[in-house]
């Protein structure tokens, strides 16, 4: 049987890490992109079979080396999950207090990075009639105060995803924009340090829901 192949960005923490573990358990070959070597080393300790790729999807210069390395290691691609995400500013701010550079950072990580990586990987995805998932947020749909850079970038990502979906269907590639809900992740506590963990979803639960959605769509 052909082993399915998945590439996950931001895959050493939270939802990405949970997805990597669950897809490996389902016998996928899984490659994970992350910026920091320490996180990748920890992931490899937990899942020695995972392929660790160090790079930053917000950097244009990193995209082709990452794409080429991923296709080499995975020998093709069936599933691309754009999970890496940035709040923009290190803490939540009014949009009026947000520096242009902080907003740019959110757009590079949350919009342009996924756009570039998808573009670089359309060939292998066409060959496998593969799937692309953009991890979204309800901040893409609701104008929450203080979430300006993040919300605006996630809105752009959501729309990007819908346009990809429309345009790529002729190539047999399916595209999904998916909101995992508010999860107990480092990013959530970075945004809201006083958040009550009990009111937040376990990323493992969100990962299970996403996989069920994908499996459902495939059946």
């Amino acid at each position: 049987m052909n082993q399915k192949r998945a590439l996950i960005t931001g895959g050493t923490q939270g939802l990405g890490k949970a997805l990597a573990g669950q897809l490996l358990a389902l016998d996928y070959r899984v490659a994970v992109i992350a910026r920091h070597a320490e996180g990748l080393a920890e992931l490899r300790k937990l899942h020695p079979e995972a392929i660790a790729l160090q790079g930053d999807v917000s950097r244009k210069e990193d995209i082709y080396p990452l794409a080429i390395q991923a296709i080499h290691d995975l020998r093709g691609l069936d599933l691309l999950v754009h999970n890496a995400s940035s709040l923009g500013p290190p803490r939540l701010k009014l949009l009026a207090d947000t520096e242009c550079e902080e907003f740019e950072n959110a757009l590079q990580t949350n919009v342009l990075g996924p756009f570039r990586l998808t573009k670089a990987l359309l060939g292998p995805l066409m060959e496998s009639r593969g799937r692309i998932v953009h991890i979204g947020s309800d901040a893409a749909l609701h104008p929450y105060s203080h979430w300006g850079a993040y919300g605006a970038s996630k809105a752009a990502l959501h729309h990007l995803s819908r346009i990809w979906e429309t345009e790529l269907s002729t190539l047999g590639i399916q595209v999904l924009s998916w909101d995992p809900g508010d999860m107990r992740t480092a990013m959530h506590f970075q945004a809201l340090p006083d958040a009550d963990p009990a009111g937040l979803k376990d990323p493992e639960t969100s990962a299970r829901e996403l996989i069920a959605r994908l499996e459902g769509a495939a059946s």
Partner: protein
Amino acid sequence: MKFSAADRVAKGAFGKTLVVTERESIRLRPASELPALLRPGDVLAYNNSSVLPASFSGLHPVSNRRVEMRLVNLLSPIAAEWIDWGALIWSLEPGPSEPWRVPTESRQPAPFIREGDRIELGGILAVVRESQGQNRFSVRFIDEQGHPLRGVLPAMLKAGRPIQYAYHRQSLDLWDVQTLFTGPAVSIEPPSAAFILDWEGVSTLTQKGIRLCPITHAAGISSLGPIEVDAQLPFPEWSYLSEGSAQILNAAKEGHSRIIALGTTVARCLESAYRLSNPLKPGWFLAEGKLGSEAPALFIDALITGLHDEKTSHYALEGALIPSRRAAEANAMAAAAGLKDHEFGDFHFIENQSLRAPHREPVPV
């Protein structure tokens, strides 16, 4: 009549011209009309290989001189990954900040390099294994202890940059030299006929019922320097057919559907595969020999390629499909229209006129 060189990055069909050489006519069409030349059921075979950054700058510690090493072709068996290479090494004279502006045929040789010497290439080490004359060597990527460097790809991606062209206006980044397809990273230079396609074109072809079929072929270097040395090209190159692609191609051949090779690398892959086995077998194989008037194309029905000067090995390959008189006519028409050659230039669709010729014994390719 010579072409002018396409000297800037320009991908996709927009603004490009396609010379169409068919049995009855030679004509010029906008390259965006490529889908109109193809019929439902045709198979368009493309080379999905990614392009490696194959140029490395570094130091030859024995002489303390700066050098450029440019990969030529992969020598290792494919299973051993990217360890052993044919390479060109030049001495880099102090001075120009863009040393690739010096045409390769005018570069300084590196006679001070001996077998066994190490070369430090910005985070990656190579050892010279054999001198092959001129500036050519066989080299091996090694670790600090001198062992073959397994898993060399990340270091290559970090230390290398794409091969640059003296005639090009700007330096090329890694994304400039990739085609749409981002498959196995085995090519040294772009399989540039694929630059005729953008995703609009791919969608149009797909919707018209033309089947796209990937092959992988390790495109080697396109020029060694002096044109008489280039006559040796192409060297043996690794090629791969997946099971799915072999099935598509065999079914097309059996059903008399046309098979169109997008690029000379695809032509070489398919013609070599056909000479090794009919029906085609999946797997890696080494494509050796040369297509040309003495070794006609027996498998493909047409070739889409760039425009090639009459002294190049790519032009000689056109002789595998059409008589040299016909190729010269097409070139004359293209040059008179001001069309451009090289990686980002115009294109040539060549219907194979040797296929229906009396049966000839295959010449190994």
